[in-house]
């Protein structure tokens, strides 16, 4: 392996944003036919390194060579043309165009000079079928879930047939099945000699596929190792820069006893709640202090259930009861009035206002509930914002930065903080740990347990089944937009049983009664 020349070399790269040294003399190299994992905590500089490489940002110092020749791309288009294909952390396709158009934009199949729409549709369908995604490619991209959009972005990047493929947290909202698909494709491309740069916070994926690991911390290079020479524990220590025991995992059966909370007072009850074309009628009760997990595959209707509870979509059948009083929740304002909060999975389009500051984003929901005539006093803002910046270790810890300047994981924490300061009684979390590093993830999980202990009800959605099982008292299983069963999370419940329930549509075989 040492005989080969790297296809890509980055030397002494520095990038300074006003007030932040995002990269400081970082070296990085990528060999053909390898999967190279770029690791680091939230804000370590991974995405910035990628954007410097593809010319989204200019560098302040350092050089990039591709195939031995020095390059300096002026933008992603030029990088793509030179054979560097990238899936950015936030899906940045065009929601107003069809799936097929998104895949072929800029390289549309043509016949006699005009776009051959039929060929485009056919090839798009084929391409997606290869990664087991069977959707209507003429539909607008925006009408699909984030996970589907992520798959489409990957399909597009892979189809470009680049020499270098860059994937910045491509799996953050994918389920186990899609992840497996993606890893399979990555292996195949690697074997074809393509160099792959892979960013993820999932260690098992790193150890499942990466040949080599580079670790960044606070914008500096920590080092580069062959995967086999860097055990998992050592990797985490390199990333966080300290001994691991500070990061003990949360107690599996911390928190309330599932039986006890289920016997407690119900907070929200849905009876036959549903919405045509979105999710079939379901009934679900969430008790005070209870964490209810939603499990299911991509497109099974988890997010849709959450949106009905919050009034993000309006239910067209069924009844919702909050605190024993039947209510209809027609819109988010009504839900927030009843102390329900919803942290969307799609932080960019449904969560944050990128231009506004961290502070403004954190107080937005609270301010909206008070009405614009009663601004949250500055001192109270400072107090709340400071408290949550510390509690969630949002970095940089500057409340007056525009939130879009934060790294992906830190943006996610800001969104979480927005809802936590409203002190909701029912907190709906749709993929709250998406893109969050392992340290902060444990922090957030611990927080959820603590909040539930304090009496808050939580509806928890995550593509990571393990996480759902660790936190939930009860797991509601979704399949094909139906809630097929609800399982109490006692000692006997494990991932296999949940997967079985998903596969069999709720008819458990051989499971204990």
């Amino acid at each position: 392996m040492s005989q080969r020349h790297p296809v890509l070399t980055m030397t002494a790269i520095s990038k300074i944003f006003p007030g932040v040294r995002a990269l400081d003399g970082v070296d990085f190299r990528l060999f053909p036919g390898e999967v190279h994992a770029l690791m680091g905590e939230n804000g370590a500089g991974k995405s910035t390194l990628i954007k410097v490489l593809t010319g989204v940002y200019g560098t302040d110092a350092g050089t990039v060579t591709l195939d031995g020749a020095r390059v300096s791309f002026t933008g992603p288009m030029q990088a793509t043309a030179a054979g560097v294909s990238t899936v950015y952390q936030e899906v940045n396709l065009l929601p107003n165009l069809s799936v097929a158009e998104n895949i072929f934009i800029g390289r549309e199949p043509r016949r006699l000079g005009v776009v051959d729409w039929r060929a485009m549709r056919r090839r798009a369908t084929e391409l997606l079928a290869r990664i087991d995604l069977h959707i209507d490619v003429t539909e607008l991209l925006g009408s699909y879930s984030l996970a589907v959009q992520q798959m489409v972005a990957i399909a597009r990047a892979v189809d470009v047939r680049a020499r270098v493929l860059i994937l910045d947290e491509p799996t953050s909202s994918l389920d186990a099945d899609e992840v497996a698909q993606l890893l399979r494709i990555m292996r195949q491309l690697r074997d074809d000699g393509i160099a792959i740069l892979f960013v993820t916070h999932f260690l098992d994926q790193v150890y499942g596929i990466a040949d080599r690991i580079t670790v960044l911390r606070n914008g500096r290079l920590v080092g580069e190792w062959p995967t086999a020479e860097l055990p998992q524990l050592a990797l985490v220590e390199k990333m966080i820069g300290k001994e691991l025991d500070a990061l003990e995992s949360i107690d599996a059966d911390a928190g309330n006893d599932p039986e006890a909370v289920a016997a407690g007072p119900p907070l929200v009850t849905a009876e036959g709640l549903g919405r045509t074309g979105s999710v079939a009628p379901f009934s679900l009760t969430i008790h005070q202090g209870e964490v209810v997990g939603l499990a299911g595959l991509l497109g099974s209707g988890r997010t849709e259930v959450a949106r009905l509870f919050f009034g993000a979509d309006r239910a067209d059948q069924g009844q919702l009861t909050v605190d024993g009083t039947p209510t209809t929740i027609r819109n988010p304002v009504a839900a927030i009035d009843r102390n329900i909060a919803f942290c969307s999975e799609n932080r960019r389009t449904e969560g944050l206002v990128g231009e506004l500051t961290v502070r403004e984003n954190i107080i937005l929901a609270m301010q909206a509930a008070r009405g614009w005539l009663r601004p949250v006093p500055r001192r109270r803002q400072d107090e709340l914002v400071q408290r949550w910046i510390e509690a969630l270790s949002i970095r940089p810890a500057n409340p007056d930065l525009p939130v879009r300047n934060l790294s992906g994981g830190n943006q996610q924490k800001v969104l979480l903080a927005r809802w936590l300061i409203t002190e909701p009684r029912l907190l709906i979390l749709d993929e709250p740990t998406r893109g969050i590093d392992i340290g902060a993830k444990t922090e957030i999980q611990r927080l959820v347990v603590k909040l539930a202990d304090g009496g808050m009800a939580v509806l928890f959605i995550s593509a990571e089944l393990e996480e759902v099982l660790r936190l939930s008292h009860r797991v509601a299983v979704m399949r094909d937009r139906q809630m097929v069963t609800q399982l109490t999370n006692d000692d006997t419940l494990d991932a296999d049983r949940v997967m079985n329930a998903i596969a069999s549509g709720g008819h458990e075989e051989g499971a204990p009664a």
Partner: protein
Amino acid sequence: MSTLRSRLPAVTGHRLFWPLVVLVLLIAANTVYRPSFLSVELKNGHLYGSLVDILRLSAPLILVALGMSLVIATGGIDLSVGSVVAVSGAVACLYISKQPDQNSLGGVVTALALAFGVALLLGVWNGTLVAVIGIQPIIATLILMVAGRGLAQLVTQGQIITVNSDPYRTIGVGHLVGLPFAIIVALAVTLLVAVLTRRTALGMIIEAVGGNAEASRLAGVRARRITLLVYVVSAACAGIAGFMMTANVSSADGNAAGLWVELDAILAVVIGGTSLAGGRFYLGGTIVGALLIQTLTTSVYAMSIDPQTALLFKAVVVIVVCLIQAPAFRARLRRRAATPTPPTTPAEQQKEQVPA
């Protein structure tokens, strides 16, 4: 750290640096052309001079542009302000002209209240089309832009209504504490809008809606009310501007009053640094923008540039201002001007928008 060298880019990089430079250049050019341009005199306790005139004539544009800033911040646009100017001016003048004593203060106040009410109604109409019915702002306000002219014609019955009312004239050309009355009104409205948006949470909420409408909705913002409100504010500002414009000439012409003011207002807002895409808005910038546009218009007349080239001249200046403000253009200039030594300027703005 804060040497002049490292501070310089912070100054030249400021949103308002180039508009202010152009404004100063314009004033300088005027002074060269006519040295008395800068002189301000005190006559009968009132200030007179070209600069004072420019301020006075800017007043209606400032008002319209203030309202426009809020509309644009929500991601909308209000093309109907010119028509609202015409309608409110026409209603006020018609009412006054029907008075037995046109100089009666009571009559004028009633006329203003009536016309202001009509302007508010027009604002509610715009806001309803946009916020409740969901028509795209450019189309929704285009309707009133066209229909409003018709409405103004209807009010004036196709005539130019002239009034002979001293109290009404005061709004356009009168003085108060030495300053032109119009300037004081513009100042007062500016303060009011600033307090309304920045002392309450309205400004932030408007910016949230303009920055990301869906995220704001999911955060519990009542986006409809906010949208409706900004169109009403915009129409209210245009209504007052209508009084000033018609009072200036003591007559209401349904056809000509406020013609093209929407374009000047949009330009003023954009020059002031507010993006047409919505989000952050800058009232101070808008005012500088309005002053720049008005100075430009006045210069064109004062230097007796012939009307055919006048518009072209105006267009060129506006294009230059917009260009030097555009980050992409500046990045290109900087790269071209890059000397062999590495640049000492701080990191250049991101070239392309690929969030996080």
